[in-house]
């Protein structure tokens, strides 16, 4: 009986040595594993979606390959409604290699704007749920998750329309000027247009005007919308009714359209 017991002991010791060596090397490999995030790049896709390309540099100097590396990002609004979900999967990151993984996060502004004016005119915080997982050394699946907020900058933050000022040019037409100001807090340059319809107090459309915009991110815009109001003898009286009324504003920012935003004046 002594020999089987001794063999059992030897086998058990060998397995323990392998197990301890494996765990020690695996833990030691964690030290030699570095993960860095690069500078995110924003762009607009041909489909009109906002694309955030986040480069991820994984330098696996450890002793084991990393398998089934997956990265998932979920954007949700303050009420918890899911706005966007992005997944990246890398089957294997071999040991001793430096791999750059591009994690593309897409955000559809149309879906955001459909949820209300708050994303167009007010800054918000979007909730971001981030999960990264991998199978370390074949047998140790690990996952790291984090929740943080992503600041959403409104492209038409603090949008203000001033009182229209009318000027009679001659008997055939008059002009109106409406001051417009806002700040582009978005992460992208705003290239689009604003169209305004000028209505008098009797809800008759007097005229409309459109202006093309190009406002760089994090910069303010101040300008005037110029209206040309054709006059006739019958419509001469409408100029007096135009001292009050409302402006219907339509926004086109390329990736999304919104309107009308009704702003009373007078």
């Amino acid at each position, binding site marked *: *009986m002594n020999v089987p017991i001794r063999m059992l002991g030897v086998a058990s010791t060998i397995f323990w040595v392998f197990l301890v060596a494996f765990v020690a090397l695996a833990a030691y490999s964690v030290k030699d594993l570095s993960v860095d995030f690069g500078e995110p790049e924003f762009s607009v896709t041909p489909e009109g979606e906002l694309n955030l390309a986040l480069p991820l540099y994984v330098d696996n100097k450890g002793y084991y390959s990393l398998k089934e590396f997956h990265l998932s990002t979920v954007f949700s609004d303050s009420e918890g409604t899911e706005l966007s979900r992005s997944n990246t999967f890398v089957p294997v990151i071999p040991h001793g290699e430096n791999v750059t993984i591009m994690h593309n996060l897409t955000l559809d502004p149309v879906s955001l704007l459909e949820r209300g004016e708050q994303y167009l005119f007010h800054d918000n915080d979007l909730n971001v749920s981030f999960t990264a997982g991998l199978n370390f050394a074949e047998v140790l699946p690990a996952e790291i998750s984090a929740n943080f907020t992503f600041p959403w900058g409104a492209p038409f933050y603090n949008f203000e329309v001033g009182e229209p000022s009318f000027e009679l040019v001659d008997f055939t037409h008059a002009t109106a000027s409406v001051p417009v100001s806002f700040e582009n807090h978005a992460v992208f340059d705003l290239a689009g247009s604003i169209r305004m319809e000028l209505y008098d107090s009797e809800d008759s459309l007097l005229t409309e005007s459109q202006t093309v915009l190009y406002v760089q991110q994090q910069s303010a815009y101040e300008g005037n919308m110029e209206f040309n109001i054709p006059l006739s003898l019958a419509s001469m009286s409408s100029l007096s009714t135009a001292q009050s009324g409302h402006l219907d504003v339509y926004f086109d920012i390329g990736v999304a359209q919104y309107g009308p935003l009704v702003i009373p004046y007078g």
Partner: protein
Amino acid sequence: MAEQQKKRKNIVKDISFRVAKATVKAVLVYMLYFFLSPMLAPLFEMIPGFMESIEAFIIVYIVLMILGDITAKTIFQHFFNTARALYFMGYLLLSMGDGVFSTSYESFSLTVNLTMFYAIAATLSLLGLARTILQAINFMHERAEAAIDMQL
């Protein structure tokens, strides 16, 4: 008289050998821990209290090992060896729980599934427990055989 003196000398020599053996084994186990702990440092940093827990485990394990070695060739050796195997299994069961280890720091949380490692370690510790029990049975069997031989 000379035989008694020789017998006493043998006992002292035997005990000295056991103590030396226990000391060498204890030093080897501690050296193993000493050299492995820097390797496991990244893991220790992530789990608060893990280092202290491991240290307590190593101390109890070494004490049981020393007691087992000092009481060699007696039934107590097998008691201590079985106690050591049971202690190891108990520690493994209590510290690992369901085999899924989770820790969080600020808004980050890390989950490592150690089920596979846990299963292998539990199997090996069961093997160790079985070995100590077999050793105890074998010891009792040899003693019984010796007693029968003496009677004959």
